[in-house]
C-alpha cells in the first residue's frame, strides 16, 4: 500500500486543525510570557484568566468542530 500521514482534506478541516494548534500555542511559551504580569483583570491574575480563556476557547473550538462534522455528515460540505 502507499503509506501516508493523515491530514485534513478540506479547507474546513485545515481551519479546525489550525484552530486546535492555535489554542495549544496559547498555553505555551512564548505566548504565555506575554500574559506573565502581576496584574489583575475581573478580580483574577492575568495568567489565571488566560488559562480560563483557553478553557473557553477549547470548548468553543469543539462546538465549531461538531457543527462542521454535522454539516459534513448532512452533505453540505
Amino acid at each position: 500500500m502507499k503509506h501516508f500521514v493523515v491530514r485534513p482534506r478540506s479547507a474546513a478541516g485545515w481551519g479546525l486543525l489550525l484552530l486546535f494548534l492555535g489554542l495549544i500555542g496559547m498555553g505555551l511559551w512564548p505566548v504565555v510570557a506575554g500574559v506573565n504580569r502581576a496584574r489583575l483583570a475581573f478580580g483574577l491574575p492575568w495568567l489565571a484568566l488566560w488559562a480560563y480563556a483557553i478553557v473557553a476557547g477549547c470548548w468553543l473550538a469543539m462546538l465549531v468542530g461538531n457543527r462542521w462534522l454535522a454539516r459534513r455528515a448532512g452533505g453540505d460540505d
Partner: protein
Amino acid sequence: MIELATRSLMPLWITLGYVAVALVIGLRARRGRVMDSLEEWGVAGRSMGGVTLYLLIAAGSISAYTFMGAPGWAYSKGVAVFYVVIYLSYLALVAWYCGPRVWEFGRRFGHVTQGAAIADRYQSPLLGGLAALVMSIGSLAYAVLQTMGSAYILAVMSGGRIPVWAGVILILAAMALYLYVSGQHAIGLTNAFQGVLMLVVAWSVGLWSAHTASGELGFGAIFARLQAERPDFLTLPGAGGDMSFAFWTTSIIVSMLSFMPPVWSQWMSARSADTIRRSATWLPTYYIVVLPMVVVGFIGILALPQLERADTVALSYALGHLPVWLVGLLGAGTLAAAMSSCEPFLHSVAMAYARDIAQPLWRLSDSATARLARRLLIPIMALIVAPVAISEPSNLVMILLVGLGFATQVLPAFIGMFVWTRASTPGVIAGIVAGFCVTLAFTLIWRNPLGVHAGFWGLLVNLPLFVGVSLLTRPVRDDVVERFFAISAPGRSRA
C-alpha cells in the same frame, strides 16, 4: 502521622455517609446485568450516555490533587498551578479527536483494553502485553497515592480515631465491592455522583473561605491583597522560582500526550462515537472546579504562613475557619476526588493483566478472561495497593513520575494508529524503550535538565528513533493497516 484533626464527629459522619451512598450507587449500577464478559464488566456494554460519560471522564481526571495538591501548589508556587487547567482542556481536544476513533476500533475489532488495540495494530501480543505491564506501574502508583489520600482524609475527619491502615482497608473494601459487582457501570454512576459532589463542595468551600478571609463573596479582594503584598505569587516562575517557562511548556505537552489506559476504557464505554465527541466538547466546562480550591491555597499564603506541609493548606484553613458541616463536606469531596480517580485505574489494571497478559500467555477463553479480570481485583488491592498504601513509602511519587513518564513514551504506538500508516513494530519498540530509558535517567539521576520535563527529553529521543527505525524496517501487514486507517482516515486508507 496526622497533625490535623477535628473534635466534632459531624465531619466524620458526613464523610462516611458519602462512602455509604457511593457504595449503594455502585452496587445498584449493575441493574440485573450479567457481568460474565469483558464487554459488560470492562466497558459497560458500550452503553454510556453523554451526561454520564461527561461526568465519568471529568471526575476521573479530578483526583485528590485538586482538593489537596492544587491548593498546596497555589500556596507554595502561586499561579503556576493553572497549568493543570490548561492541560486538562487540551486532553479534552485529544479526546474529541481520538476518542471516537478508539470507540470505533473497539466496536469493529472487539478491543476492550488499550493493550489489545496495540497488539492488534502491530500484530504483536508481546508489544500489547509489554505496554500493559509497564503502564500498570504508573497506574498502580497512582491508585496507591489516591488510597493514601483517602485514608489521610478519614484519619483527619475522625480526629485520629480511624488510623491510616483502617482507612485504607475501609476505602479499598468499598471500591472492591462495587467494582467486582458492577464493573465499569459502577465507575460510571459513582463518578457521576462524585463529579456533582466535587463541584458543589469545591465552590461552597471556595466561596465561604473567600468570604471569611475578605468579607466578600468573590475572589477579587484576595488577589488584590496578594498583588500588593506578594506579587511573586501572581507570575511565573512562581514564589519558589521553580516553574520556568520551559518546565511549564514541556509539562503541558507531556501531560497532554499521555494516553492512560482508564481513559481508553472510558472512551470505549460510550454509546456511540458521537457521544464521546459531545462529552469531550463540554469537558472543559467542568474544570471550573479547580478555581475555588486553588483560591483557598492563595488565602493560605496570607492566613497560614507557617504551614509545614503545603498540601494540607485547604484542610488546615477549613478546620480553623469553616463550620463543621462544611469541613465534613470538604472531607467527602476530597474522598470523592480520590476514589473517582482511583477506581478506574484499579479496574483497568485488572483488565490489562487478564486480557493483555494472561489471555495470550495461557490461551484463555474470553469468558475465563472476564472471570479472571474480576477476581484479579481482590489480589491487586489486597496484595499490592493496601500494603504499599499502609507503609506510606517515601519514594512513591518518584515511581508515579516514572510511570507517567512512560505513559507519554507509548506515543509512537498511537501515532501509528491515528496519524502515520508506515509505523512499524520495531520502530515503536525502539522509540518506547529509548524514550523510557531517557525519561528514567532524567527523573532519577539528572532531574529535568535545563528545566525541561524529563518526559519531553524522552520524546526528543523517542520520536526520531521511532520514525527512523520504522522507515528502515518492514511495515505491518497492509490489510491490518488498512483496517485501522479506514477508521482513522476514512476514504484515505487505499490512497
